[in-house]
């Protein structure tokens, strides 16, 4: 179990509508990155999301190759369109 981590993915905008969820828990392997998690989401929901996102982890901008930790909150941020 030590090699498995529990993370929370929070969904907004188009990705929220495509998954039909506002958030979802994933059990992932140690060493997984946001890039790996995006693959899991696409597979689980049978959707294609592409890579046009920024990454936030625990309310901070982060990177696609960031190694996720147990308890992290992950957000895939679509191109913003405020204003």
């Amino acid at each position: 179990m030590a090699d498995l981590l529990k993370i929370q993915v929070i969904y907004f905008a188009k990705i929220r509508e495509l998954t039909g969820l506002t958030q979802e828990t994933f059990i992932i392997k140690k060493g997984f990155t946001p890039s790996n998690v995006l693959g899991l989401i696409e597979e689980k929901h049978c959707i294609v999301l592409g890579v046009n996102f920024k990454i936030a982890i625990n309310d901070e901008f982060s990177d696609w190759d960031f190694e996720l930790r147990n308890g992290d909150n992950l957000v895939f941020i679509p191109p913003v369109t405020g204003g």
Partner: protein
Amino acid sequence: MNKFKITSDIIEIETNKSIGRGKAIGARALFEGIVRNSNEGQEVIKLEYECYESLAIKEGNLILDEATKQYALNDAFCVHRIGSLEIGETAVIVITASKHRDEAFRACRYIIDEVKIRVPIWKKEHYIDGESGWLKGAG
């Protein structure tokens, strides 16, 4: 103090009248972004804004701090509306205050431009034909 705010209430210019006032302030610029009835040839009947609030506030305040330093502002403020908005309603206002007008104008422009490309807020348009869609953004 958080000067960048997210609200689901109607934004009234009048209620923000006291922001950016003071004896050292000689110029106050105000930008108001309003919901219009068309986009890229399609007739828009209403907009929906969604927001990742905790990060939006953090990033919005960072932008206001940058503008304050860069343009030596006395004050900077921004409020963005979320939820469902009708045509003609105010979506966002930016207020900057400085000694002279040039800094106030330039900082106001800087803030709204940066908000539009950095703050995690998303806009969904609803069209007259019943269709709707999230805007794609600059990517």
